[in-house]
């Protein structure tokens, strides 16, 4: 295949990616958009495999087969609740691959004339790919550990962290300058090590609730790293695809941050300023009013208007289906029921929509925050299932709270509030919720699925 043909096929793949992103931003075209992206990726892969003079073709095919099996199995097996971690993991390995590609290219540059003729720009781009790729890899792995709760979800800081972070950052830049002046593979390897450290330091101080935004940011990082790698290899497809993801990822990160009422700087470095220290995670022993399933059933039965606030706890308990049955039962009794979906309910923006869609909750019942918030005043009962931070009034009333400034669902304005909770443990942000102690509030303790099925049978019995 000639160079021109290769270039044209890459161009087609690039167009597929642009249309894929376009498609993914609208509900009706999303699935086709994704498939089109996959088609572009397959086209590009087949194209590169036909490149003239490619060695180790069998080994390459085997490696692709291994990666395909691993990717498909992971993607098929994962529970929808664990999806954010999986996306973080996929992002991380992509960043790692980009860094390895840049290191190998550096190895070739060194082998060829000791890199004497290598253009400055190429070396700068190589250093950038290695640094950003490794930051993305290490950062994603820490993100994964936080979401999988392999480590604490609370911000981790220590006094030397800002100094270490600034030092590694400047060190990374200095090493890149060294690489340009004195081309050597070892400098590249040291850059990679610095990048790994930088990635860990970047994500450690980020609190659990903000981790999803970091995934999106690291996603953009990997994109930029791939783009720079494309420049190094002289491959336009990598440049275009990487830049597309870098730009749209950065934009998406800002959209998500503003949905939470936070700035990106605050999310990344807020904990360093001591802003997030309020999240003590302690359990208070103040009195609360708890009730049984029958009490909850009666409250629901006498309501005309019920709003459900689902949270991550619902998904963990796999209680979506039971909740839907309860809502069906209430609707059949003429009670108006809606779901209030906070933009960051679950562990990622839009995550709750995915989870409820899985339980076949009709789309019309899912209300976005801005649409439902004025309606809480008219609601007789708000049923909060496994959610906490998204209805915590501290976001409005307590400056200095980790979630201060985040728009919340106005559950406190309803006439009655019912919380289904496992325990008095605080939410993901690690702060106490005043609403639990409100006189209007009734708590039903227990596993969400268990509680819901008890409430369901109590409602049926009434």
């Amino acid at each position, binding site marked *: 295949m000639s160079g021109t043909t290769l270039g044209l096929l890459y161009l087609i793949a690039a167009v597929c990616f642009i249309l894929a992103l376009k498609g993914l931003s609208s509900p009706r075209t999303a699935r086709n958009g994704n498939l089109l992206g996959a088609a572009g990726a397959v086209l590009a892969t087949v194209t590169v495999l036909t490149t003239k003079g490619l060695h180790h073709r069998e080994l390459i095919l085997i490696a*692709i087969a291994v990666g395909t099996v691993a990717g498909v199995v992971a993607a098929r097996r994962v529970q929808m609740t664990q999806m954010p971690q999986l996306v973080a993991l996929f992002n991380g390995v992509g960043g790692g691959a980009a860094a390895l590609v840049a290191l190998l290219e550096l190895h070739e540059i060194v082998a060829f004339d000791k890199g004497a003729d290598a253009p400055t720009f190429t070396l700068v781009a190589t250093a950038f790919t290695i640094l950003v790729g490794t930051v993305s890899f290490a950062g994603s792995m820490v993100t994964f550990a936080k979401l999988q709760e392999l480590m604490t979800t609370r911000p981790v800081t220590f006094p030397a962290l800002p100094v270490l972070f600034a030092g590694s950052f400047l060190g990374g830049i200095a090493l890149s300058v060294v690489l340009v002046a004195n081309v050597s593979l070892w400098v590249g390897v040291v850059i990679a090590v610095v990048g790994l450290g930088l990635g860990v330091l970047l994500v450690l101080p980020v609190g659990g609730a903000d981790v999803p935004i970091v995934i999106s940011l690291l996603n953009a990082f990997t994109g930029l790293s791939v783009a720079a790698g494309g420049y190094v290899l002289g491959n336009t497809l990598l440049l275009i695809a990487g830049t597309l993801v870098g730009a749209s990822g950065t*934009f998406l990160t800002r959209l998500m941050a503003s949905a939470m009422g936070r700035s990106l700087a605050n999310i990344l470095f807020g904990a360093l300023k001591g802003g997030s220290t309020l999240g003590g995670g302690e359990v208070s022993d103040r009195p609360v009013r708890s009730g049984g399933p029958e009490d909850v059933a009666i409250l629901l039965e006498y309501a005309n208007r019920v709003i459900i606030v689902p949270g991550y706890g619902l998904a963990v308990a796999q209680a979506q289906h039971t909740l839907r049955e309860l809502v069906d039962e209430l609707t059949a009794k003429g009670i108006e029921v809606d779901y209030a979906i906070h933009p960051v309910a679950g562990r990622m923006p839009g995550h709750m*929509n995915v989870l409820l869609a899985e339980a076949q909750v009709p789309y019309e019942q899912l209300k976005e925050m801005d649409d439902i918030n004025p309606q809480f005043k008219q609601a007789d009962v708000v049923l909060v299932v496994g959610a906490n931070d998204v209805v915590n009034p501290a976001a409005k009333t307590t400056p200095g709270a980790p979630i201060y400034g985040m728009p919340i669902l106005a559950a406190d304005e309803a006439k009655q509030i019912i919380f289904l909770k496992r325990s008095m443990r605080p939410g993901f942000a690690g702060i106490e919720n005043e609403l639990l102690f409100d006189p209007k509030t009734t708590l039903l303790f227990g596993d969400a699925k268990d509680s819901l099925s008890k409430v369901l049978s109590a409602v049926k019995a009434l």
Partner: protein
Amino acid sequence: MSESDLIWLTIFVLSVFVGVEVISKVSSTLHTPLMSGANAIHGIILVGAVLVTGTSDSTAATVVGLIAIVLATINMVGGFVVTDRMLQMFTGRKKEPRG
């Protein structure tokens, strides 16, 4: 900066604008699938991994290249499959009689 670098820069700048423009109207419902889909797209580093592995001269370089290929493929294939799984639920819902 050489003349060919200027072409690269042009492609880069235009791609930035396209990247922002195509997703500027996304609803928050689709943030997660969009992130996941974009994540799959940068798995295209696979093309780069294949190119460097295919020209590697030492065993060590080949091994590193093959690792890069496996990682990039996981990113790309896994990313598209998991995105499709999410979106399947969104579209499947419409066909449900109770929807």
